């Protein structure tokens, strides 16, 4: 399982990159969902969102999930590519599979990579 050290993580399995302000779904989450066939981003640039607000709806071949905002912020951009290539969430969750860019998000309430690794391990037992 890939959990990059430079990112911050939420309990609902989203990552947030304080350096680029991008956010998305973790490798753990995409693995649980299996093959993702549909992504719908529910927010638009300019929207103000709170931590825990839904930002995207994801459907895989066997499950459906909502993705929540890891931080309180303003939406700066959304990844338009996901509409046509939702499989990027499976193949490249931390780079090409980014979902939204969240301007000035405060990452202080999020887990670091070590804490998130433990959090994922606890759940796999």
């Amino acid at each position: 399982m890939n959990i990059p050290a430079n990112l911050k993580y939420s309990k609902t399995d989203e990552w947030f990159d304080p350096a680029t302000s991008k956010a998305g779904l973790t490798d753990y989450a995409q693995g649980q969902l299996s093959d993702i066939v549909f992504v719908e981003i529910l927010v638009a640039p300019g929207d103000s969102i709170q931590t825990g607000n839904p930002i995207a709806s994801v459907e895989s071949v066997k499950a459906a999930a909502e993705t929540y905002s890891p931080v309180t912020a303003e939406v700066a951009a959304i990844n338009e590519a996901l509409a046509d290539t939702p499989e990027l969430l499976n193949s490249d969750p931390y780079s090409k599979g980014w979902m939204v860019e969240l301007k000035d998000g405060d990452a202080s309430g999020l887990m670091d990579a070590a804490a998130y690794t433990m959090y994922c391990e606890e759940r796999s037992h």
Partner: protein
Amino acid sequence: MTYIPHSPQERDAMLAAIGLKNLAELFKDVPEKHRFPALRLPPALTEMEAAIELGELSLGNENVRTDLVCFLGAGAYNHYIPAAVDHILQRSEFYTAYTPYQPEISQGTLQAIFEYQSLIAALTGMEVSNASHYDGATAVTEAINMAYAQFHGKRTKIVLSPAVHPQYRAVLRTYTQDLRLTIAGDLPSPDLAFAPQSLLPLLDENTALVIVQYPDFFGRIHDFTALIEAAHSRSALVCIAANPIALGLLKTPGEMGADIVAGEGQPLGIPLSYGGPYLGFFATRKQYIHKMAGRLVGETMDNRSQRAYVLTLTAREQHIKRERATSNICTNQGLMALAAAVYLSLLGKSGLRQVAELCYHKAHYAAEKLGRIKGYSLCFDAPFFHEFALCCPKPVAEINAHLLEHGFLGGYDLGQDYPGLKNYMLLAVTEMNSKDEIDALAEILEEVAYV
């Protein structure tokens, strides 16, 4: 052996959890005199006696196949059903009408549904059809659910033509009563010359969906292309509730630019049967497939590269997506969908067109003939398919009572739903009506005008 799964202890625990002492308290909202009414049942009968009694009761039935000449339509139509439809429906392989979850044992049923979907998509001019709904009214209502989901609940206005079937309008209001929608255009006393352009001023940036009917409830044919363009200019979706037989002859809703085509599939090989079971069909464009309600069968390859059919895109459905699903309906009307698929396959493209042409020409012969009877006139001058409104010199109920004495099932009384349309009779003519029957109808109508 009883089939009640809960033990007395379990029942007591459940009652305690909701703060009740006994089962009787659960029913205290039912007025006491209705709680355990005396049923006053006659003594039990033997099977032989019951068969005789039911046989006698059935003699009281009158049906449109053998007893009555039918000119009644208004959403359910009397068409010829080839014998092969029933024969195929009754094959034991199709006995389970329930949705086939297990593709490894359900290839035949899944393929039949896939064929049904392909036929509906072709007929409506759309890209994808679901595996069906209960009936026309519920299928049209799913268009609202889809549009509502498409705009994430942010658009809350539905523009509804008053010329959509009154029962569809009643059902969709019931279904959507908790969505806090504004339903505009559905006036109790619409402009009699109602035309699509009368809906144009109602379109705005809050409009999620426009619903019109084709042919409309009065049988009239409108081209909705301009209305659809106007709706699309405000990013609203448009649903056309269509008669599938008419689509064998007329321009398809897909060609007009509709986003959703839904309707009643009963005319496709399903008997009138006193109102059901019927079939709701629902088709849309591929871009909306993830917001579509209902089941969907797809074609794929199995691990031996053989063609195979499976339920597909199920993650959008309520058993997985729960409260975030477009609709909480995900069952389908499998046996009726099969009937429609068999009917359409037997007729083929030219056969369906022939049925539609027979309906059209016979209805026009009837309209021409009936409109010339003294005291009667055609209420509208718009082009129509196989149904038209006849303005009568007397209340429709009175005329229908007279027609019934002659073995004729008369038209629909439009005054029931439209207070302004007193003495308006909606008559349907299909391939089942002979010229002699139409001529006889004209004679009785002429006679009844002077009674």
